[in-house]
């Protein structure tokens, strides 16, 4: 393929480095220094996509982040697919593979285009709301159709092989944008010794200076840029980030930057390199030097490929050596855009005409055009472009003074390119991210940043200061302001002399009238990406949408990845006119992060795969793995769930573990239990306030079970707390609740009862905890300790310090299985040693490791609750039948006491936790099943409560279950029915939740 639109010389591209790339399956060649967009234009590719709603052919319109049409799917392999890449921001590299994100079967011949042509009238604004509402059942069908048609790109189906990274940064001043204002600011701040970050979305610094023919100090502006970049790179405290889009400006001067590291030159990051890096910057001061985007004018068929923004045309000529056509018509309302005609002419191509909406344009560039003999048609506008896949000509007509009516005959002219300019819109997006509302500036016909609470300064075109001279000066003064705030001293900065340009007054013009009314004229596009037209906005206003925010949502203007970069002001101007208001009265919608789409890779960084979430292991984890345990996630803990042997099913393994424990002895790794060390002379008083039961008389050496409630009286955690010494306790919590309980204790201590002398320390990880449970557990423990662990010396609910397997241990005689049990706690780094020692001596007792599932079954056989499974934040201790754990007589009104006495908490017929004995002993109720008292009641049946715990019990050779039943504690022996989704109805008898050993004889031996 030849690059038919490429100039012989000029531009910032390296013609000695040809790069081959693939677009929509065809191979093309570009040069190093190109963007994907400039390379496509060089090759004469006109159509780069199909529009969102009408599926009209679209071409490249702009040259930067504001490009609405050239949204590409990039990626050579399935795993490296990136959707929503702007061709104007993607550097070209050899082997780049890109494709249009929409258009079927191809962008050149699109089936939807027919729908757009035929159905244009059928797709007014609000189309989706109006059409796809009914019937509701069809929504899923509609949605997939819309998504396919809309061409929003697609996510890769395979894992991204690249590495992404995140970096936290701190600086004195961050400068967003490295155009003339940004570079001047950076130079000023850097010379003063400030820590500076300067970021720019483009592959090299310079901004507008890179694509301008302007001279600074009589030399090409790019030379000054090179000097500044060279100087900046000598400062250690200056971080220069090209290819880096500042995408979000968040509270308290927190900014996020997406830096393209290798995906600007390679499909996959070369070995070991980071593809993209996400910088999270906390800046003391922010200087926004984000520049401005040129506004296209709105005219008929202004979306035909070949219709472009004026300055973009200049950029392609001056920076990339690409003239995207042969015959140009330029339409403008201002002097600045004349430069495009000059550039086009100077590149040796034909300028058909400059169409100026003003009657009497004057100024430097106007004179220059006249000198070149370019025809200027004043007081006129291009009312319509002709052509479908490429502009073939234009209709030009004289306009009235206000620019809102055609007042003379139409002249048709042949042309292949229409460049238009309605002036410049400051890029205020970032300044809006923190909630600051922009204000209208009549002098520049645009919105500029409003007041902000951030430490934010602005410089250059973002303020409407469009000349290079102004931009340079404001860059220096913004940095000087920042330095003053930072208490730093500014050093001299001598600015280069910019050319003096005489600018004439611009005309406020947004929407070019047609001979036909807007609704009947050829489509005049305002927002290309969302296919919003002038007539659509007018219709929205006629239908009663008056707030610009509502107009936006009804028409979709400024939605999605576009965020209204090109079209917003034009749209607001059209709405304002319809509503007979000024633009400032109409107001503007504001912009939200992110400025351009950010890849998930950049956001995730390294926090994926094994590093997605921390995993916590106990000291015995390796043993569990070796033993083939299946694991369960409990909070961040990996806990053994069960230990299958051979080809055992899960149920077979559970049955074996349950039987072995009750028959002889089992062992559980209970290290994950939350453990909080509580010390201080008021520790005991404190426990009495946060637990529902009494703690005043618990002697040293004893343990006690306690329930913890919220102020509403509802149970939220439970556990055993032991008295280690008079002013020293060890509290245990549920594995998942440890952090919450600790902060609960802290908040009460710090905010309500600071007078109590008590200290809390999390010691969960300090201890390894292994519970041996079963009739032979004492015999096993005796093998490892000389301490007297007999019933006489160590009763139920005692704890004793002793030596186990040669290491100091705290052993608690508490039980969650109902069996004789010892909970052995040793320093965590001895855990594995003691665990293995237990197994060395456990063989003769068939010591069986069991996991959380067997623990659940064994405790359910005994009717012990698990906070969070058998409670859900809506049950108090009395609902659980645990009045024995509440002491209403305590002098201090403990947390939960008042709450559980509220009217609703003491009423009749609350849901209460009871045992559920299925009539068919083999039937296991599903947890969560809803109970009814009359299975023949008409649907919806009155539901009386749900099953909370349910298991097959090998020990009892039947199912066991607990659940809530309204008034259940008074319904012992009555029946409750569980109709299931599969049609079965399981019948159960309400009973005590204690299915095994109701007298507790097994644990008191």
């Amino acid at each position, binding site marked *: 393929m030849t690059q038919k639109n490429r100039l012989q010389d000029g531009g910032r591209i390296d013609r000695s480095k040809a790069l081959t790339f693939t677009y929509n399956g065809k191979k093309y060649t570009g040069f190093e220094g190109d963007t994907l967009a400039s390379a496509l234009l060089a090759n004469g590719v006109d159509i780069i996509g199909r529009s969102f709603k009408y599926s009209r052919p679209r071409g490249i319109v702009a040259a930067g982040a504001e490009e609405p049409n050239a949204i590409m799917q990039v990626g050579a392999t399935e795993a490296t697919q990136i959707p929503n890449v702007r061709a104007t921001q993607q550097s070209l590299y050899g082997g780049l593979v890109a494709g249009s994100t929409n258009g079927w079967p191809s962008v050149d011949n699109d089936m939807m285009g027919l729908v757009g042509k035929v159905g244009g009238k059928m797709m007014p604004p609000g189309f989706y709301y109006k059409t796809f509402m009914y019937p509701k059942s069809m929504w899923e069908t509609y949605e997939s159709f819309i998504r396919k048609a809309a061409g929003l790109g697609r996510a890769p189906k395979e894992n991204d092989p690249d590495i992404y990274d995140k970096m936290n940064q701190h600086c004195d001043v961050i400068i967003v944008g490295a155009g003339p204002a940004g570079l001047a600011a950076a130079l000023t701040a850097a010379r003063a010794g400030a820590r500076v970050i300067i970021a720019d979305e483009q592959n090299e610094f310079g901004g507008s200076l890179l694509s301008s023919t302007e001279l600074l100090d009589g030399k090409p502006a790019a030379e000054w840029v090179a000097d500044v970049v060279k100087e900046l790179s000598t400062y250690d405290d200056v971080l220069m980030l090209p290819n880096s889009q500042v995408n979000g400006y*968040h*509270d*308290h*001067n*927190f900014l996020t930057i997406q830096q393209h590291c290798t995906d600007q030159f390679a499909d996959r990051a070369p070995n070991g390199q980071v593809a993209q890096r996400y910088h999270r910057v*906390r800046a003391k001061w922010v200087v926004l030097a984000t520049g401005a985007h040129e506004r296209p004018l709105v005219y008929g068929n202004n979306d035909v490929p070949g219709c472009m923004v004026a300055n973009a045309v200049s950029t392609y000529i001056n920076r990339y050596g690409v003239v995207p056509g042969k015959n140009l018509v330029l339409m403008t309302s201002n002097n600045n855009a004349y430069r495009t005609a000059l550039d086009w002419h100077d590149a040796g191509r034909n300028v058909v005409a400059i169409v100026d909406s003003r009657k009497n344009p004057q100024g430097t560039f106007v004179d220059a055009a006249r000198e070149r003999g370019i025809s200027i048609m004043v007081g006129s506008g291009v009312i319509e472009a002709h052509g479908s896949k490429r502009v073939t000509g234009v209709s030009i007509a004289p306009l009235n003074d206000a620019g809102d009516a055609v007042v003379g005959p139409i002249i048709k002219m042949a042309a292949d390119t229409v460049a238009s300019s309605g002036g410049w819109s400051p890029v205020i997006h970032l300044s809006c991210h*923190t*909630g600051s509302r922009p204000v209208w500036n009549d002098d520049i016909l645009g919105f500029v940043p409003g007041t902000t*609470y951030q430490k934010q300064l602005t410089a250059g075109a973002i303020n409407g200061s469009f000349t290079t001279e102004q931009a340079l000066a404001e860059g220096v003064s913004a940095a000087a302001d920042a330095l003053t705030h930072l208490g730093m001293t500014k050093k001299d900065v001598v600015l280069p002399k910019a050319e003096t340009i005489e600018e004439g007054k611009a005309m406020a013009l947004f929407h070019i009238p047609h001979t036909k009314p807007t609704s009947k004229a050829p489509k005049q596009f305002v927002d290309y990406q969302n296919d919003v037209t002038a007539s659509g906005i007018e219709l929205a206003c006629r239908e009663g949408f008056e707030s610009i925010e509502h107009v936006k949502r009804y028409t979709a203007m400024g939605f999605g990845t576009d965020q209204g970069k090109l079209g917003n002001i034009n749209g607001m101007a059209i709405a304002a006119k319809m509503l007979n208001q000024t633009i400032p009265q109409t107001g503007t919608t504001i912009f939200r992060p992110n400025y351009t789409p950010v890849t998930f890779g950049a956001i995730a960084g390294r926090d994926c795969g094994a590093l997605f979430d921390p995993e916590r292991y106990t000291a015995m984890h390796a043993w569990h793995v070796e033993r083939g345990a299946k694991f369960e996630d409990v909070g961040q803990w990996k806990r053994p769930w069960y230990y299958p042997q051979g080809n055992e099913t899960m149920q077979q393994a559970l049955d074996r573990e349950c039987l072995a424990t009750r028959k002889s002895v089992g062992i559980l790794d209970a290290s994950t239990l939350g453990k909080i060390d509580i010390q201080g002379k008021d520790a005991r008083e404190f426990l009495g306030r946060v637990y529902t039961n009494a703690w005043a008389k618990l002697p040293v050496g004893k343990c006690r079970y306690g329930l913890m409630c919220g*102020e*509403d009286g509802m149970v939220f955690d439970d556990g055993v707390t032991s008295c280690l010494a008079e002013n020293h306790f060890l509290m245990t919590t549920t594995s998942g609740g440890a952090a919450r309980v600790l*902060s609960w204790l*802290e*908040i009460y201590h*710090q*905010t*309500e009862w*600071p007078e109590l002398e008590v200290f809390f320390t999390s010691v969960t990880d300090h201890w390894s905890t292994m519970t041996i449970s079963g009739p032979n557990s004492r015999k096993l423990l005796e093998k490892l300790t000389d301490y007297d662990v007999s019933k006489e010396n160590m009763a139920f609910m005692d704890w004793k310090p002793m030596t186990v397997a040669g290491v100091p241990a705290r052993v608690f005689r508490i039980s969650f299985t109902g069996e004789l049990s010892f909970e052995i706690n040793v320093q965590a780094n001895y855990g594995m040693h003691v665990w293995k020692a237990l197994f060395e001596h456990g063989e003769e007792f068939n010591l069986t490791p069991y996991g959380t599932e067997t623990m659940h079954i064994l405790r359910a056989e005994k009717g012990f609750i698990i906070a969070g499974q058998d409670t859900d934040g809506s049950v108090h201790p009395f609902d659980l039948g645990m009045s024995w754990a509440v002491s209403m007589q305590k002098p201090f*009104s403990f947390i939960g*006491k*008042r*709450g559980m006495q*509220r*009217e609703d908490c003491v009423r009749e017929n609350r849901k209460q936790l009871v045992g559920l004995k299925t009539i068919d002993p083999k039937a296991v109720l599903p947890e969560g099943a809803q109970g009814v008292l009359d299975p023949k009641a008409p649907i919806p049946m009155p539901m009386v409560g749900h099953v909370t715990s349910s298991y097959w019990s090998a020990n009892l050779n039947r199912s066991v279950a607990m659940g809530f039943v309204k008034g259940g504690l008074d319904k012992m022996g009555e029946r409750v029915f569980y109709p299931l989704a599969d049609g079965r109805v399981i019948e159960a008898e309400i009973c005590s939740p204690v299915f095994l050993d109701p007298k507790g004889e097994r644990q008191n031996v």
Partner: protein
Amino acid sequence: MFHIYCPHCCEYREEEEFHAAGQSHIARPLDPDACTDKEWGEFMYFRANPRGIHHELWVHAAGCRKYFNVTRDTQTYEINEVYKVGEQPTVVANAIQSK
């Protein structure tokens, strides 16, 4: 993302280190048993939702674990001051309005 000064660590730290713990200055009634259901319900559930100055309790969860108060503007997200538990705010809604 907020940048919060911890009055106990005496440093600005990132919001990720902190947790918000609701409205400040909600005192637990000294004699809960003397409260009516309505009074107790108000203590438990009713919270201000102002547009503007708000006093909030925060905890330096991944730092010193201390709770402290923050006066924050819910509209601008400006943090006007931080102060320790037991202290009173100096920036209050009326003072701001009269500025």
